């Protein structure tokens, strides 16, 4: 059979490419030039401040006081331990290191598609790891010294709050979404009320209530950890948002899918777990990750109830007179902004990668 050849693609040089893509019309040319100008006025000064004119060595504020000095990196170096561990007892910091390392290794294992035993590692990360982290971080058992959560801080608090929120909010949100679409009126009502109440209240209010008002309602003598209260508040708050995202996905699944599963005798939970949710969740991955990202950034609000998370610890460090220079505050903020950005951007990239992989065979 004579096959017709696909026409070979025309090779184009950079000049032709630029003419076709950047200067194809006068409007396009104006936009291109404006963009070039914006890059010109913003990028070189930033690079100059952060790298070229920056101060890299020194033991005190004196080093950063030169008239044209840029970023004051020795300040970050001096405060790095606090940024990573907060006020965690110095000799016990190896425990935090273990939690960080195991967490990072587990996540990497799950994220890299080629590695085997995904299910075992996943179950380990969901069940064993939280227990391990709890025992190691809190202590007070197995001969480990107790480190109260008031001493935790910096990246540690940010990660504990956001990871707990992320891990707890997805399953809770799925249950709430299923409940909101339930045929049973009582369950549906409860879920609607829960979702609408939590979504209708600002997170700051919720955190304030958890830290200051809740103890007033508890019986005399009953106390539980303030960080734990904040964790529960954040998890429930984000579960309400997650529920609506998941519900959106559920609504996009055609009725025929439910009917086919029911007709095979799968029953409610298997229909949901094996047929509907895998499709619905895949559809809403971008929104789920978007929720995770905003949750991660919202954890900075715990600083107003007295926890020194990444933002809180930098703010307290900034006000240290020993490091008072014109660039201190800005250096601190840029540094933690970079940490937040790196975490959020990795989540975003991972979700795009996941979407591509899941979408590969199963396009409708």
């Amino acid at each position: 059979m004579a096959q017709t050849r696909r026409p070979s693609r025309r090779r184009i040089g950079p000049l032709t490419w630029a003419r076709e893509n950047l200067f194809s019309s006068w409007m396009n040319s104006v936009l291109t030039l404006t963009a070039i100008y914006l890059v010109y006025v913003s990028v070189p000064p930033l690079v100059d401040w952060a790298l070229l004119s920056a101060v890299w060595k020194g033991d005190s504020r004196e080093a950063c006081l030169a008239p044209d000095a840029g970023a004051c990196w020795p300040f970050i170096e001096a405060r790095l331990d606090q940024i990573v561990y907060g006020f965690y007892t110095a000799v016990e910091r190896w425990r935090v290191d273990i939690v960080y390392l195991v967490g990072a290794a587990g996540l990497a294992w799950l994220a890299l598609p080629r590695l085997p035993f995904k299910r075992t590692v996943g179950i380990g990360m969901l069940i064993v790891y939280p227990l391990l982290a709890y025992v190691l971080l809190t202590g007070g058992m197995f001969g480990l010294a107790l480190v109260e959560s008031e001493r935790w801080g910096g990246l540690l608090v940010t990660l504990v709050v956001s990871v707990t929120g992320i891990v707890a909010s997805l399953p809770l949100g799925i249950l709430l979404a299923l409940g909101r679409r339930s045929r049973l009126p009582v369950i549906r009502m409860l879920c609607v009320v829960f979702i609408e109440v939590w979504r209708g209240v600002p997170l700051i209010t919720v955190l304030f209530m958890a830290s200051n008002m809740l103890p007033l309602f508890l019986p005399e003598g009953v106390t539980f950890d303030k960080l734990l209260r904040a964790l529960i508040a954040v998890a429930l708050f984000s579960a309400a948002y997650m529920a609506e995202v998941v519900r959106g996905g559920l609504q996009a699944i055609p009725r025929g899918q439910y009917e086919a599963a029911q007709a095979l005798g799968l029953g409610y939970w298997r229909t949901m777990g094996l047929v509907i949710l895998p499709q619905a969740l895949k559809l809403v991955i971008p929104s789920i990750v978007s929720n995770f990202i905003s949750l991660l950034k919202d954890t900075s609000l715990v600083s107003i109830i007295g926890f020194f998370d990444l933002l809180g610890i930098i703010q307290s460090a900034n006000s240290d007179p020993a490091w008072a220079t014109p660039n201190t505050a800005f250096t601190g903020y840029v540094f933690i902004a970079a940490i937040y950005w790196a975490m959020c951007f990795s989540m975003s990239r991972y979700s795009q990668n996941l979407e591509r992989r899941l979408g590969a065979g199963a396009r409708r």
Partner: protein
Amino acid sequence: MTLETDGHLKSHATEEVVIALEGVGKWFGDFQALKGVDLEVRKGERIVICGPSGSGKSTLIRCINRLEEHEEGRITVDGIELTGDVKRIDDIRREVGMVFQQFNLFPHLTIMENCTLAPLWVRRMPKKEAEANALKYLERVRIPEQAHKFPAQLSGGQQQRAAIARALCMNPRIMLFDEPTSALDPEMIKEVLDVMVELAAEGMTMLVVTHEMGFARTVADRMVFMDAGEIVEVADPETFFNAPRSDRTKLFLSQILQH
């Protein structure tokens, strides 16, 4: 397969009643979709249901595995009466396979996974056995080579045959077909009908809603004509096509057999 002299498939109908509908009524809001429907289906019997659109054909067979709830009368399937009892409904759905107009394959699973899902989770069949079983039925519908593809990679006719295999994998006693060829391009209708004729020849109890009158002539033991939610006429195909009694049946036949 055994064709009798008139070109009709040999009947496998027995005396045992497997589906009994007595005075079944169903409303959608104020619209009455089924009005006092009585029908008995015997084991091995093949019934083709036809009628104008909106006449209640699909609703009728969807009531049999309770995708729709009837509000009046009694439906008994395989000796079990359909009530609100979830356990009984699932028991019945295990024994009753269904094929839909839109195939409704699960797009996130391969054809093989579509076919083994219910045997694995509902019948608790070991994985090896479920896969061997699935392959057997995929061979019967002549698409074993498609087993590891996703539904979207198959043609409409192949998807519908996969859907038939998926239903057969549960080893059902009764098969319901809800306009199985209506969403197919003309050249794919035959491949699906061929599979259905083979199934009929093996003695499967079948209720088929379809407009394929050639298929009906060959396969049906009884024709059921519905209009406006009622069963208007029940007859063997010979009588039904050549000497229908009711005027409504005559009108319907004249409209669909014109071309």
